[in-house]
């Protein structure tokens, strides 16, 4: 069974500071990895995805993530956060193939302070 752990449930950073949100996954085969963001009263929007190849993937709005097979991790980073980045961020994993569904971590609520 696949699982995702996000160890930091709440993160507060100052505007302009750098950000890292951690994600560890457990999966027996090669995973497909995603980061989604959820703003209040909205659905999920994908920030970036990793299927294979270069372990550092670029996403929208300056976000990037790095896949590490040895560490079973897919941490999200941003060099300089903006107040509008305040939201809940979810790491998710799925498999390749018919029927594949997303398994989500419990999310990290990011608050960007002025």
């Amino acid at each position, binding site marked *: 069974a696949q699982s995702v752990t996000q160890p930091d449930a709440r993160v507060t950073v100052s505007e302009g500071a750098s950000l890292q949100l951690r994600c560890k996954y457990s999966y027996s085969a090669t995973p497909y990895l995603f980061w989604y963001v959820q703003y209040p009263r909205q659905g999920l929007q994908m920030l970036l995805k990793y299927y294979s190849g270069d372990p550092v993937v670029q996403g929208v709005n300056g976000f990037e993530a790095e896949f590490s097979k040895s560490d079973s991790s897919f941490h999200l980073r941003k060099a300089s956060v903006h107040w509008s980045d305040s939201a*809940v961020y979810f790491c998710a994993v799925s498999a390749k*193939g018919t029927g594949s569904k*997303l*398994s989500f971590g419990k999310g990290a609520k990011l608050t960007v302070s002025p």
Partner: protein
Amino acid sequence: NSKVIQTPRYLVKGQGQKAKMRCIPEKGHPVVFWYQQNKNNEFKFLINFQNQEVLQQIDMTEKRFSAECPSNSPCSLEIQSSEAGDSALYLCASSLDWGDEQYFGPGTRLTVL
């Protein structure tokens, strides 16, 4: 930006009542998922479809939940007899293929009194 449409946005039901919500997936997406997100941000996969056919569904879905994705009509998820524990955000997502990025709708927030 996602073009998955979910209606209604909010739904309030009494225990034992039926609760029905609808989803229009992105145009051209044959794969549809329903997830339940509770107040603790725990996601539970409910059911998925390819075209109009159910591929997988969890046990909970098999007993009180029913879902369909008819051609040329919105997909729907219905809870036959709502329970307090069903209060949650129900998210519909669609994708072009299995394993691809899933596009999510805004969700239907169900409150069971």
